[in-house]
């Protein structure tokens, strides 16, 4: 007797995943659906390894998550936080595939207490500016469609100017770009930016002003949240674009400016049109201009032809009526003509000078005269 087993198990031909494949797939799922995020929590058991990496747990009242912070980022975060320190971490969620552990890879860490003070100051300034209407959408001006001169308020050495120039070269080579240099972070940045924004108002022939910097850490953006800089920006007399170069945070200059861009490159794209689009518009206008004139002259030609026809018809009418009148008059003249009378046998006597001899006294004896008959003259003599 043969033992028959109903094997409800996968065969080699079925899809069977390895653990590694599973973890890779899960990691991809997480990676594809979660961008870098800020997470708030309490640090627990922060261990500094000899490699310089930090490993710790972040928790709140309900949950916890494993975190690691690699050496380079950890060295920027200062001392390892003590247990219970409340922090914000900027992190990317993922799966540590070798161990199958869900974890956060932390790029930045800020104690909430430090953030708290800055946040309070930011809120205070924000309220003041809001009260003065500096964020009012009605204040926002449109960027002119075809700019020629652009002021860029930024650091002389930063990437922002180069980024703006690169975009302008590609899209709008007729632009003139004026750097108004200012420190954008650290000591003196606020004063520099205020001075630069005031200087912008004295540049003749300016169309637009971009103020900004390349990407930076949150604390480096402080100057762009300062009340003085925001008020100076609001007083710029041409449309403004704030480009502080940070995808996550919004600075107060972003709210005050007429437009906000995530980066200086994006600001340049908002500021200038694309030359290829404008050349296409010019081509289109060129065609319409030509066909507009053609249409207009064709219309004139048609009108002229119609006028000619009417004129011809009118002249022909006048000629016809005149011809009829002439015919009629000719017939009347013909009826009255003395020649017609002569045709009936009458004759007209005339002296040599052609005067008609009407009375007896006109006939002088022995004088010649002419008798006009139907077909000519006959010479005669008075007896």
């Amino acid at each position, binding site marked *: 007797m043969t033992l028959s087993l109903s094997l409800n198990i996968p065969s080699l031909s079925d899809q069977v995943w390895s653990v590694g494949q599973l973890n890779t797939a899960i990691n991809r799922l997480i990676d594809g659906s979660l961008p870098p995020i800020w997470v708030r929590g309490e640090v627990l058991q922060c261990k500094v390894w000899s490699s310089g990496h930090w490993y710790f747990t972040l928790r709140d009242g309900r949950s916890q998550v494993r975190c690691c912070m690699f050496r380079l980022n950890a060295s920027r975060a200062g001392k390892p936080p003590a247990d219970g320190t409340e922090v914000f971490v900027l992190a990317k969620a993922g799966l540590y595939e070798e161990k199958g552990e869900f974890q956060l890879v932390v790029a930045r860490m800020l104690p909430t207490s430090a953030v708290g003070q800055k946040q309070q100051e930011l809120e205070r300034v924000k309220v003041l500016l809001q009260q003065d209407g500096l964020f009012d959408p*009605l204040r926002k*001006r449109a960027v002119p*469609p*075809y700019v020629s001169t652009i002021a860029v308020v930024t650091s002389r050495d930063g990437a922002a100017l180069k980024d703006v*120039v690169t975009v302008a070269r590609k899209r709008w080579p007729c632009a003139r770009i004026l750097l108004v240099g200012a420190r954008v972070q650290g000591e003196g940045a606020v004063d520099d930016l205020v001075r630069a924004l005031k*200087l912008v108002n004295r540049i003749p022939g300016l169309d637009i002003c971009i103020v900004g910097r390349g990407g930076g850490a949150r604390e480096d953006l402080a100057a762009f949240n300062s009340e003085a800089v925001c008020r100076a920006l609001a007083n710029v007399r041409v449309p403004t674009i704030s480009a502080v170069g940070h995808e996550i945070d919004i600075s107060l200059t972003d709210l005050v400016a007429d437009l906000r861009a995530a980066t200086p490159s994006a600001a340049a794209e908002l500021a200038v049109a694309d030359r290829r689009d404008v050349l296409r518009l010019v081509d289109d206008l060129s065609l319409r*201009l030509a066909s507009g004139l053609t249409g207009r002259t064709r219309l004139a030609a048609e009108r002229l032809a119609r006028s000619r026809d009417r004129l011809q018809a009118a002249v022909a009418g006048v000629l016809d009526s005149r011809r009829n009148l002439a015919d009629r008059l000719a017939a009347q003249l013909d009826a009255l003509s003395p020649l017609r009378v002569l045709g009936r046998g009458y004759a007209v006597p005339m002296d040599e000078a052609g005067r008609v001899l009407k009375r007896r006294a006109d006939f002088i004896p022995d004088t010649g005269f002419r008798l006009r008959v139907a077909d000519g003259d006959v010479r005669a003599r008075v007896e």
Partner: protein
Amino acid sequence: MRKADPGTSTPALADDLARLEEIVRKLEADDVELDAALLLFEEGVARLRAARERLVAAEVKVQAVLEEAGGDIRLTDLDA
């Protein structure tokens, strides 16, 4: 939306293109006398040429704005 303060530049290209639109619309509307249409056409051709020259001839110019001790503004060319 507020307007930019008067005194700022009105780019000539924008003027040219706006006027060209106006000219083309007038020509397309058929209610212009032929003499006027010819004048409009001539003006349109001149503005098209000007617009094209502005668009194709130029190269980005980069300058730094400096404030002199006396308060005057000075521009210097930059290699950027």
